[in-house]
């Protein structure tokens, strides 16, 4: 018989891995092939030798120890998860606090700082027209002269028009009194002008300082 050797078929035959038809062919070959038969014999003895190997047993309580280890691992995972969450919360709190401080500091008033709630407006003040000085009313007294008496007024003819209502008689001021009054007016006007100018100057100064600050 000139069939090829069984090779790995020998191990499969030994391990019971061949189906019925394959096993028949193998057995037919083994009946005729000395080499394969010797090889099969060696493999069988090896199989028996390996089967004498003593098995080992897990130490007592092995299953319980496995479960204990699983519980311990889960506790570690829970602890680590809680710790990580704790750190995350702390980090978030710190970040919020820093943001709060930054926002607060932005609106805080530092000493000497000019606070502008709104952007400062450039105020242009238009200077009011300078008031004209009141005319001086100075009554000068002419030297004493005897003046001719004034002619008596001629009474007006009576008409249908109702006569104008009588006006109260004006008090008669002396020349000195009139001069004093005129002088007082002048003085008052001068004070007003001066004060007004001072205030105006102050405003200008303030506006200038504000403009410089803006720059």
């Amino acid at each position, binding site marked *: 018989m000139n069939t090829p050797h069984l090779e790995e*078929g020998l191990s499969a035959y030994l391990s019971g891995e061949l189906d019925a038809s394959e096993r028949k062919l193998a057995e037919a070959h083994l009946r005729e092939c000395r080499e394969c038969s010797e090889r099969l014999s060696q493999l069988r003895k090896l199989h028996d030798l390996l089967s004498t190997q003593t098995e080992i047993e*897990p130490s007592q309580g092995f*299953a319980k120890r496995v479960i204990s280890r699983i519980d311990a691992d889960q506790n570690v995972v829970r602890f680590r998860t809680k710790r990580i969450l704790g750190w995350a919360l702390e980090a978030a709190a710190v970040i919020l606090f820093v943001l709060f401080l930054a926002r607060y500091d932005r609106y805080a008033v530092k000493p000497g700082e000019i606070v502008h709630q709104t952007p400062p407006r450039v105020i242009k003040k238009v200077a009011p027209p300078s008031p004209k000085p009141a005319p001086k009313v100075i009554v000068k007294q002419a030297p004493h002269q005897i003046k001719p008496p004034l002619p008596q007024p001629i009474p007006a003819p009576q008409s249908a028009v109702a006569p104008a209502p009588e006006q109260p008689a004006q008090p008669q001021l002396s020349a000195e009194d009139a001069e004093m009054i005129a002088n007082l007016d002048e003085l008052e006007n001068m004070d007003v002008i001066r004060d007004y100018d001072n205030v105006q100057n102050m405003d200008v100064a303030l506006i200038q300082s504000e403009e410089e600050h803006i720059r």
Partner: protein
Amino acid sequence: MERFEQDPDVGLMQRVAKEDRAAFEELVLKYQKKVINTIYRYTGNPGVAEELTQDVFVRVYRAAKNYRPEARFSTWLFTIVRNVCANYRTREGKYDRQMDSEAGPQLAGPAQHNPESDYQRKEVQQKIQQAIAELPESLRMPLVLNHFSQMQYEEIARVLNLSLAAVKVRIHRARLALVEKLSALNPYAEATDD
């Protein structure tokens, strides 16, 4: 192969997704020995095997809520075993191949009353374990899953994301390599024809 929808472990896993601790403990008790022996054969260290087995089941619990039954539960479970072993290999560079039977899980099996035979038995077992540990990575896991986890080729292909043909080849080569490594032991010096 039974359909995974009928897999009772899928139902348990769905209860674990609802944080049913009793269902989870049931799964652990059902698979702890298979998982620890797979990892032990892969790493050669029983203490490391128990530690990595714990890692496997912790991962199973954490992944419960996202578990989608697209295959048998054992297929999914041993995919996690594969990943845990791969991470261990990457982390450790090379793992300790020394068997330490004093610490951690204990060797099961009947006690021998003859100390000398016990010693010889342990010697043989250490040599076999060392030979397995020295196998290349690509050959070791398929062999371990097939022989020590009683997993069929098709499921091994899914767990390791290999083709069925690749799994057959790798298991065969792993066995041939072990035959060669262990040829000095008596069983191979007296090989006879069948």
